[in-house]
């Protein structure tokens, strides 16, 4: 029985209170959106969601990675291959990217399920991540948010199986982004809603329910792409769904996360679901796409994920609109960034185990771990006796720190820490943390982040982060484990 065997999600800790966009002081509990910080993008968010999804599973079993995003920045360089390396997956994993439509996420999810059903993959990891931008103070800016969803597809022990799906393909220019441009465009909103969102989404949902042989009333939760609250209500009504069947679209908390939006709402629905429930996931874009799932007994056994709810609870609000602009390099006085030369492709190639996968070496003689893996062991001086040691999934602690105001950053200081992980020393930057939360021996986990953009493209490594704890939204912005 093929289906979803695990899921995960990621929402950046950083939030932009919408009041700041209009130059007003944010109110406690007021509307906000999740924004990828200066060191995050569609790739780093996909890695974070994947780590959430893979927790407690055997990574070595994953044999396919499908990455969906409309905002992954490179054209002739695959995102899925980079992500597979960051996750330290097998070399024979089949990787592919889906893009160019807000519907790319559900398309990737169905493709993953089909691949496993057809036998071309045994365990497919589907990662859906988006980080779209509206122009500063434009209509879209307050609506879009950033986030990622992850699904592990397999035929053993699924927590939810795909009952039916239906697609609608519609040549409709509602929103688009031209290659090389930073901002998404959209046509007049009433046209988009009346001729695009409402008819396409409701048609796909009705069609999927019909194929599944169930009535709208049989659906426990419907994770439906929400253009806005009013439009979502109209779509539900035309599809025969009642308001309380709709999964909360997290308006004023998350933002429209593009092709990851409906999939993230599906994750949120799965977090609350119990066995034998019917869940609907419907996405919009160039038509619409609806999937009907049925949960199994397995859902009660899956260990809790950080998921959408956990990540939403951990938040740190930006203090100013300028800080947001700087973090997105939209400030005309933007912070100085890296040189134009870029990294040497050959050095990057040689060091990809350490730099992308955070895999070091464990000495076969004395057991000392080092990152990067040297030729000669620092402890026992044995030459060339190493086995790989993945450190990205281990917890470390802070041995030393400094706050560097000299290094170019969106919001100095850059927090540099020396960490000890599995007896290995690793110098990294510290993310998700304010200087006053740093202390010696602080326990940390590692997160995949963008380090700089030398060469005009994102260059990645891992950073340390205080170990994840979901903090209540009314809590004092924290996230650091104290």
């Amino acid at each position, binding site marked *: 029985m093929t289906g979803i065997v695990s899921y995960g999600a990621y929402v950046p800790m950083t939030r932009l209170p919408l009041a700041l966009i209009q130059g007003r002081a944010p109110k406690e509990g007021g509307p906000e959106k999740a924004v990828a910080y200066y060191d995050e993008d569609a790739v780093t968010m996909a890695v974070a969601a994947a780590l959430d999804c893979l927790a407690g599973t055997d990574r070595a079993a994953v044999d396919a990675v499908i990455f969906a995003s409309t905002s992954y920045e490179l054209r002739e360089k695959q995102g899925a291959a980079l992500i597979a390396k960051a996750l330290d997956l097998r070399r024979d994993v089949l990787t592919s990217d889906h893009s160019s439509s807000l519907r790319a996420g559900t398309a990737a999810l169905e493709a993953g399920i089909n691949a496993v059903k057809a036998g071309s993959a045994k365990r497919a990891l589907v990662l859906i991540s988006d980080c779209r931008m509206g122009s500063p103070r434009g209509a879209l800016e307050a609506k879009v948010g950033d986030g990622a969803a992850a699904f592990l597809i397999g035929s053993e022990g699924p927590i939810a199986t795909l009952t039916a799906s239906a697609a609608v393909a519609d040549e409709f220019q509602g929103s688009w982004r031209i290659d090389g441009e930073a901002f998404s465009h959209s046509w007049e909103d009433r046209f988009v809603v009346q001729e695009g969102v409402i008819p396409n989404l409701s048609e796909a949902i009705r069609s999927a329910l019909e194929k599944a042989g169930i009535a709208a009333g049989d659906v426990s939760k419907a994770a439906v792409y929400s253009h806005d609250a009013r439009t979502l209500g109209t779509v539900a009504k035309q599809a025969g769904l009642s308001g309380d069947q709709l999964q909360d679209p997290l308006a004023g908390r998350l933002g429209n996360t593009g092709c990851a939006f409906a999939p993230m709402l599906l994750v949120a629905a799965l977090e609350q679901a119990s066995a034998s429930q019917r869940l609907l996931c419907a996405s919009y874009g160039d038509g619409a796409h609806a999937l009907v799932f049925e949960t199994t007994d397995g859902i009660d056994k899956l260990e809790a994920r950080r998921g959408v709810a956990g990540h939403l609870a951990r938040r740190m609000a930006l203090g100013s609109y300028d800080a947001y602009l700087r973090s997105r390099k939209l400030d005309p006085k933007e912070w100085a960034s890296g040189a134009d030369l870029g990294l040497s492709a050959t050095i990057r190639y040689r060091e990809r185990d350490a730099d992308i996968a955070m895999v070091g070496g464990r000495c076969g003689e004395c057991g000392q771990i080092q990152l990067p893996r040297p030729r000669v062991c620092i402890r026992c001086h044995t030459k060339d006796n190493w086995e790989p040691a993945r450190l990205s999934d281990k917890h470390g602690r802070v041995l030393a720190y400094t706050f560097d105001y000299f290094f170019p950053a969106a919001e100095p200081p850059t927090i540099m820490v020396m960490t000890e992980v599995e007896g290995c020393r690793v*110098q990294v930057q510290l993310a998700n943390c304010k200087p006053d939360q740093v202390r010696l021996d602080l326990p940390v986990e590692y997160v995949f982040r963008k380090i700089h953009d030398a060469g005009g493209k994102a260059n990645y490594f891992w950073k340390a982060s205080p170990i994840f704890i979901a903090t209540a939204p009314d809590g004092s912005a924290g996230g650091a484990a104290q």
Partner: protein
Amino acid sequence: MNPEAIRDKVSIIGVGCCQFGENWDRSREDMMVDAVWEAYEDAGIEDPDKEIDAIFAGAVYPREGSGEVAESLKLFGKPITMLMDYCQTGTDALRCGVFAVASGMYDTVLVLGFDKPKDRGVSGPTVNFDKVRGLPATPAGWFSLCAARYFETYDTGREDLAKIAVKNHHNGTLAPKSMLKKEITVDDVLKARIISWPFGLYDCAAQSDGAAATIITRADLAKQRRDDHVLVKSVTVATAEHPQRDPDFDFLAWKPTIYAAKDAYAQAGISEPFREIDVVQLHDCFTLTELLTYEDLGLCKKGEAKDHVASGTFELDGELPVNTDGGLKTFGHPTGATGVRMVYENVLQLRGEAGERQIKNATTALSHNIGGAPQTCGIAILGMP
């Protein structure tokens, strides 16, 4: 190995140093010529073509090799060694020169250190983006790594470091060729903008342009040049584990200094450095580096440095004056020149020519550099015959 093989075999007969500073209107050639001709005059060298047998030079920033030195000094047909090993470059140039003279191959050798970082268009170090690991890679960030744990272990803080900056600023006002001549207060240090915690602006050395030179010769030939020649008691360098990779690094001491000091004291036959050494120039790239180096050189016990800072042990009128010319902090830090500049100051102190900052009755002087992440250290000990 014979650690005493070079002791008292080589003498310094001349020193020279150009004006340190942001020398916008002076080229590397200008600074080299200023320093070297002063050293020639000091040593009584009248015909360098005949009297200088070899040149050992060091610089961190240029990549023009020995040709630049030959062209600047118009010394051709001679062996010139060009060294680069970050902050200990100057001390290593001296070491290579001393060993070359001690071998008997050369009679008289010119040792030269120079650098001109202020042609790069940036204040402070260059920030590299040619890698993703180990960033930010700034010297302030590297040298601050011991701060948090040292502070916590030995109840030390920014106020203790500030007193070191105040001392070196005062000393710098008394050195004619120093870059900065400005008295400061502890309050100034504590209120300055932070560069890399715990270092504020005044905790960081002044990056400057500069060149320094020294002329060395066989000890038995030195007396023909001058009575007050200065003997090289020891000169060594040592390289340690990368502090960011060393699984045993304790963030309380810098290993390169501990390694190099052990060898330097063995060479010179020193067993109680605090009592046997009269004046010290040490590598105060940052105030914490100076504090740790008091301990790493064995001048006081681990954890007791702040007590000595409080009691003024290392001030000009203290028991063991340190950085009598203002150090890197205010004399300036043209990286490749610094080790040779320290020899210049120590020779002036030993000969009693240090003017307002002169220490009484100094007969043994130590200079120290630490560099890289830091991984390398160079130490030279000089003494009167």
